[in-house]
């Protein structure tokens, strides 16, 4: 049962202004107001692994140009939720519509056509460790942009590396990259096909505070540059604060709260407050 924090929290007159109105938060508010067209709609999603029920009827929607952050503790089903959206896991019940297509009805080839439009950044970046950075970025192009000339591909790769500020790492192997660099390259590889939706699976986990902040800023920059809608799975509150247009909170497979960062921060629910303090 979703608790609409807007309704439950006491929004007294003269309530405190949202904290730290940064440029990023202004921009994300603007982005949130762009349009209300949903690009992802999930209804009644249930998923169990043997006897363990991970998702117990999740409902959510992501509007165009919006970044929805999914917060929840480990084991709450966050990663399973986004894996269901790209067909890495199959739901037991419920409907998932991505860019207007019900993914449960798609055949493998049709699902692959949709997957090109959806980017997925893995928690550990999942760079192909036998390939250099250039080859990692060229690989999706080689498979999906067969008519693109070699020069054009090279230009696209360089553009993506410039976006993430790692042009000098082009010939390095992933094993030589730091955690933050791997994340950036992973992001560049995902964005190289210009997806309309990005799914970030714990993008700042395992990074120091400074690098995590850089990655969060990069996510905002890419969202603005390519007008991407996104879902971010995280329990990094700094990342959530910086990037979220809207947050949903997942507890034991159920969405228990929804709202902006500022709204949720003021919640009186102990469990919700435990994330913010």
């Amino acid at each position, binding site marked *: 049962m979703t608790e609409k924090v807007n309704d439950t929290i006491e929004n007294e007159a003269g309530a405190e202004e949202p904290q730290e109105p940064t440029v990023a938060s202004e921009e994300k508010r603007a982005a949130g107001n762009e349009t209300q067209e949903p690009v992802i709609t999930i209804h009644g999603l249930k998923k169990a692994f043997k006897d363990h029920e991970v998702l117990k009827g999740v409902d959510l929607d992501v509007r165009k140009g919006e970044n929805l952050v999914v917060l929840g503790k480990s084991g709450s089903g966050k990663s399973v939720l986004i*894996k269901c959206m*790209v*067909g*890495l896991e199959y739901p037991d019940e419920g409907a998932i519509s991505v860019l207007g297509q019900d993914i449960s009805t798609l055949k493998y080839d049709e699902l*692959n*056509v949709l*997957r*090109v439009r*959806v980017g*997925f950044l*893995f*928690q*550990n970046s*999942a*760079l*192909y*460790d*036998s390939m250099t950075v250039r080859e990692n970025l060229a*690989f*999706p192009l080689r*498979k*999906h942009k067969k008519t693109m000339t070699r020069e054009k591909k090279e230009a696209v790769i360089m553009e993506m590396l410039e976006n993430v500020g790692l042009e000098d790492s082009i010939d390095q192997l992933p094993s030589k990259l730091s955690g933050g660099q791997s994340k950036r390259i992973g992001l560049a590889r995902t964005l190289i*096909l210009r997806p309309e939706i990005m799914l970030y699976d714990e993008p700042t986990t395992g990074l120091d505070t400074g690098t995590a902040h850089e990655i969060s800023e990069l996510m905002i920059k890419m969202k603005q540059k390519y007008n991407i809608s996104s879902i971010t799975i995280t329990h990094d509150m700094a990342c959530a604060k910086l990037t979220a247009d809207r947050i949903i909170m997942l507890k034991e497979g159920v969405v228990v709260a929804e709202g902006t960062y500022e709204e949720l921060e003021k919640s009186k629910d102990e469990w919700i407050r435990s994330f913010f303090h």
Partner: protein
Amino acid sequence: MPPSLNPYQKAKIRVTEKRSELQKFFYAAGDLVAFAGRFFRDVLKPPYEWREILYQCFLVGYKSTFLIGLTGFIMGAVLTIQTRPSMAQFGAISMIPGMISVSVVREIGPVITALICCGKIGSRMGAELGSMKVTEQIDAMEVSAINPFRYLVVTRTLATILMVPLLTIYSDLIALFGGYLAMNIHDTSTLRHFFVAAMSHLEFIDVFPAIIKTFFFGFVVGLIGCYKGWNARRGTESVGMAANSAVVASSLAVFVIDMLAAQITDLLV
């Protein structure tokens, strides 16, 4: 097992455990058959990953030449050295080249080559794919709309199917050369004379089934190596287990195929 249980209860528990193991074995076997089915379905579908197939052929074939060559050489030399005294007793030294060629070409060459491939190639594939699974590289490929099965499994299995027969032929030739050198420790024979004597004992029924079975050896080495890696669980320990079980299972499969091939050949002769 608690001591308070009566013999019937103990026996029942043992039977349940064994049944569970047997069930697991059949589940795994069924899963492997399904995996093989997927291979045959995907191998025929374009687009073909020529570049990756060639690269895997290079890794499986060219990168194994030294090891296979050395093993083949030792195999031929040892076989000659160890059979020579017995053959000498019967005054059948001149039969050694023929005996070496028949035993190497029919049995020892293909089996030893396949077993080395199980150890070298099967384990590499198991570990490589297992590592890719654990680090979500296979999932990354999947969500990039690239069929990872076709790119990883089909290419590797095709490479082993193509390369193991070639490696076997290469190993057989080196083994004969090893036999020739070993024979010259005590006797004198020219290389030409040795090879002519060796080849004159070989018949179509010696060579053809031996070559055919190496395609099956290549198939199981590649497929089982990939299967074990593909099904690795999430954890670094499973990578080692995948490599290890790939070697064990594919070696076993090589022996089973060899036995079946021997029976089939026997029926045909």
